[in-house]
Structures are given as C-alpha cells and as structure tokens.
C-alpha cells in the first residue's frame, strides 16, 4: 500500500471491537450465524440430525478435515499455498496402513508422519531457499507424492486395521469421541503457536509484508520451511485419523481431499493473500463443511449435486467477505 493511501485513510481510524476491525468482525459473526442456522435448519428438516450417533459422525468427518486444513492455514497465512496436502495425506496413509497391518503399529505411525514431514520439508526448502513459487513447488510435490503412493501400493487395498489403532479415528475417551479430542487439542496448540510465540507473530508478519519481515531481522527462510513442514506433518496426522476411521487404505485415499481443505480455510475467513485469519476460523470452516455434507446426505441430496453446492457456498462466503471487506476496507485500506 502506498503511503498516500495510508494517509488518506488514517484520518478516519476506525473503532475496533474485541480487537477486531469491522471487516474481521463480519467474518466472525457471519460464520457463527451460518453455523447456528445450519444446525437449526437441519434439526427441523431431519429428525435424524440431532442424534448422538449422527453428531459423532459429523465430528469424525470434521476432525481430519480440520487437521488437514489447519496445516494448510499456516501456509496460507504466509501468503503461500500447499497443493500437495491431499496427495501427502494419501501417501502417508498408505505407508502407515501397510506397516501397521504388517504388524508394527509404532513404526507405521512414525513412518506415516515421517513421510508427511519429509514432503513438507522439501516443499519448504523449495519455496524459501530455492525461491520456487509455492503454487509450483507444491503442485510438483502433489504429483510426486501421488506417484509414490501408486508405486508403494502396487494396486493393493489394505483393510482391517488393529482395534487399538482405530481408536484415534473411531474411539472414545469416556463419552468424548477421540477425533474431537484430537481436533480441539490441535486447535489449542496451533492457536497458542500462532498468537503467543515469536514464530506465530513471524508467520503473520511474513504474510502481511515479507520485506518488512526480512528487514526486521527475523529468520524468514527457516520460518517458511517450518510452515510447509507443519503442513506436511498435519496432512499425515490427518491421514492416520482417516485410515483409523475408514479402516482401509488405497491410493485413492488422498483424492478429493485438497479442495475441501482449501474450502475450509476460505470458509474460515483466512485470506489467501496472507497475513489475516487463523486456525480457529478454519475449525469453524471445517465444521460448516462437515455439517453441510452431512445435511445433504440426510436430506437425500443427489451426490452429483453435492460438489456443486459446496463450490457455491465457498464462492458466496469469499464474495461476501470481499464486498464487506472492500466497503469497510476502503476506509481501512484492505486492498
């Protein structure tokens, strides 16, 4: 932004509520209203919606989606993108499932997470040290991870995982489903990371003004490697939860994971331009997506229509943010 613009805008410094500028407040309120409306509407339309077993079903789908999109959120906050998250989920899930059913669950989990971390580290090194645009670097990684999954699986389908392992996707701790615990634990940890550590500050600063971040003397390269590594690691974490839930794995595991993950990030109000948003929004976004999908299934919406409905919702939410952000932002410089 130019200084002239800043000066013109500065005259009308806007009041802030709860530490949020009006355009951010709109994002938060609109998502909470959407969530409430969804729950109320679905409760009225379907007698099966507000049942314990259905709600558990919803969170079991929301949790891995959240894990995947939370890692992606870190990348998006630095104004990057990670297109490889779905494929990395697939590769990690296949490796883990194969080793776990082979009789070594600890090795399987470690290898699965390690594969995700390795992919993320390569992405991070390419983006930060080699200067490859994140879109290109992670697009390449998407095909590499996908290809490796095919080579590794040789057309095999793995099913029937041990019950102890399945706990993380389908189990309970007391009355609380494990995926819920995992989701909220991860959310809390990432929230603290983003808002209470110098690293988190740095992630926002890099997304807001990469030049300022570099000139401030912070280790920008290492922080970029960190976010891509986290994105890969979170994708493999999500893979474990998905495999545990579905009790099966094959090369198609990672298909159709990328777009919902991006959707959850957008629905959660994180700007694809970087520097604005957070993982709490992404959790809400993942929950909204899971509810919409569940609702459409309950109401018998044709599967062919479901993807279109999702796309429509994403466009409406991002468009509304832009209109509101632009209208208020004209006074605040959200250009």
């Amino acid at each position, binding site marked *: *932004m*130019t*200084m*002239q613009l*800043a*000066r013109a*805008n*500065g*005259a009308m*410094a*806007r009041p*802030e509520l709860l*530490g949020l*500028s009006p355009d951010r407040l709109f994002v938060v309120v609109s998502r909470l209203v959407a969530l409430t409306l969804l729950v109320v509407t679905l409760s009225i339309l379907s007698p099966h919606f507000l049942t314990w077993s259905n709600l558990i079903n919803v969170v079991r789908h929301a949790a891995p989606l959240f894990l995947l999109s939370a890692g992606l959120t870190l990348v998006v906050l630095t104004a990057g993108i990670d297109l490889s998250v779905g494929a990395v989920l697939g590769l990690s899930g296949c490796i883990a499932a194969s080793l776990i059913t082979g009789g070594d669950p600890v090795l399987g989990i470690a290898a699965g997470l390690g594969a995700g971390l390795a992919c993320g580290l390569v992405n991070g090194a390419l983006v930060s040290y080699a200067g490859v645009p994140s879109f290109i670097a992670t697009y390449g990684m998407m095909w590499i991870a996908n290809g490796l999954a095919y080579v590794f699986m040789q057309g095999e389908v793995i099913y029937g995982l041990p019950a102890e392992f399945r706990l993380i996707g389908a189990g309970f701790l007391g009355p609380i489903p494990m995926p819920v615990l995992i989701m909220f634990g991860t959310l809390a940890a990432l929230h*603290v990371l983003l808002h*209470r*550590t*110098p690293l988190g*500050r*740095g992630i*926002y*600063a890099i*997304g*807001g*003004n990469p*030049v*300022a*971040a*570099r*000139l*401030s*003397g*912070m280790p920008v390269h290492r922080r970029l490697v960190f976010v891509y590594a986290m994105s890969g690691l979170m994708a493999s974490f999500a893979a474990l939860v998905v495999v545990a839930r579905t009790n099966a794995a094959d090369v198609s595991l990672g298909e159709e994971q990328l777009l919902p993950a991006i959707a959850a990030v957008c629905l959660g109000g994180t700007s694809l331009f970087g*520097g*604005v948003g957070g993982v709490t929004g992404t959790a809400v976004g993942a929950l909204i997506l899971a509810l919409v999908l569940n609702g459409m299934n309950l109401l018998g919406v044709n599967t062919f229509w479901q993807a279109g409905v999702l796309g429509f919702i994403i466009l409406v939410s991002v468009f509304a943010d832009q209109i509101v952000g632009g209208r208020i932002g004209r*006074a*605040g*410089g*959200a250009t």
Partner: protein
Amino acid sequence: MDQQTQPLVAMRGISKRYGGVQALADVNLDIYAGEVQALVGDNAAGKSTLIKILSGAVPRDSGAIHFDGREVDIGAPRDAKALGIETVYQDLALADNLDVASNIFLGRELTLNGPLRPFLDLRRMEEDARTLLSRLKINIPSIRQKVRSMSGGQRQSIAIARSVYFNARVVILDEPTAALGVEETRKVYDLVREMRSHGLAVLMISHNLNHVFEHSDRITVLKTGRLVGTRRVAETSRDEILRMIVSGEADPLPAAGQREAVS
C-alpha cells in the same frame, strides 16, 4: 558537537555493482554521535544503496565498515541491529496486518521468563510500547490498532520509535518525510532532534535541501555512485551544495573547512 575526532561509524572504500551498473564506487562516509548527517544527491546517486549496505539489507562488493573504532562485518539486517544500527525505510517496513505493539517489536519480540520462555510477553510489550510512545510524545489512539488504518505520520513515528526502543546508536532515515504533511513533518523532525540530543548518530537521506539545512550538521553529496564531498552545514551554503549535486565537482575547500572534509 565540535571537533569529534573519532567517528562512530566510518565506511571506507565502499563499492557495489548491480550487473553492469556501478552503484557505488569507493565511497567513504563518517557518521558522528550526537550529529545529524544528511546524504544528498540526484536520483541514482547511490544514497539508498549506501544506507542499505550499512543496515545490512544489501551486501557490499568491497570496502570496510568501522564501528566505534573497530572493523565490523555487516552481512544481514540482524548484524546491523546487533551493533545498534537501526533503519527506518522509506516504505516503512511495517506489517500492516499487525498492531502497533507487534510492529515495534517485530523480529525482536519479548518473551516470558523461566519455563514459559518460548511464549510472548504480550503485556510487557504493550506496556513498553505505550511508555515509549508517550516518552517520544507520539500520539496513537490505541496500541492495539492495526497499523493499516494509521496515517503516514503515525506510521513513520512508529517506525522511528521502534529504533529508539532498542537503544539504537545510529538511526538511518530514508526520506523520513517524503509522504508527510507539514504538521507530520514537523513532528518527525522533533523526533530527530530528540534523538540527536540523546547522543544518537542520525543518518538521513533527503531531497529537500531546506530540511537538510535546517536539521542536519553535516551534508554528504553523492553523484552517480561517487562521493563528491562532505561539508559542515555551518561552513557551506545552499549554492555550494547545489553545485556539488549538479556538477559532481567539489569546490576548492575554504581553509577552515579543509580538515573536516572527507574525500
């Protein structure tokens, strides 16, 4: 500020080439504590490159930098900051999406003590930011406001305050008032005077010769990457400086100013 023999910063024989362009050729520059040193010259004179080398944003091809009498290696912004050399860039180098306190502590966040050491000390950063701004008489409505919504003058003040907080010994200002109104400009120069009276060395790029003559102690003229000369404000005139900027030739020095000139 009379007759300081030892400059705080001495840049010697600094050269920098960008591809086929010689941005700086064998330039010397001395900066003294408690003085404002202005850097003037036409476009492409090499002013920005010179300050970027001192602030660690750009590596030099050759030459040496002495700080406080000893040779130092400045290869990255962090090195300069560690020495107490702070830079306020023309484009401000603030993160618009963060609030005032976050920007003041950008890259040097304060953390809690003991086992909580990995975590930010948000309260202390806010308190210190508030104290700092009131000490410098900078008027900001809220320390939690995003920088994005602030005026150019407020943003410039925040950028300068940042350098003051970290006990800068040298503050580099790149066109500090280029985009500011009259009142805001006055406030920024109040800050410059404040820093000088605290014994800081200020190096300032400006295109406005009125400001330069009003607020600085020494003027160094560059042209197309070469040093034309350095004059004390008390011993030169606007005409002489203008001639140096335009012609790139230094007038023969008057006897009194001779020993001050760096050539």
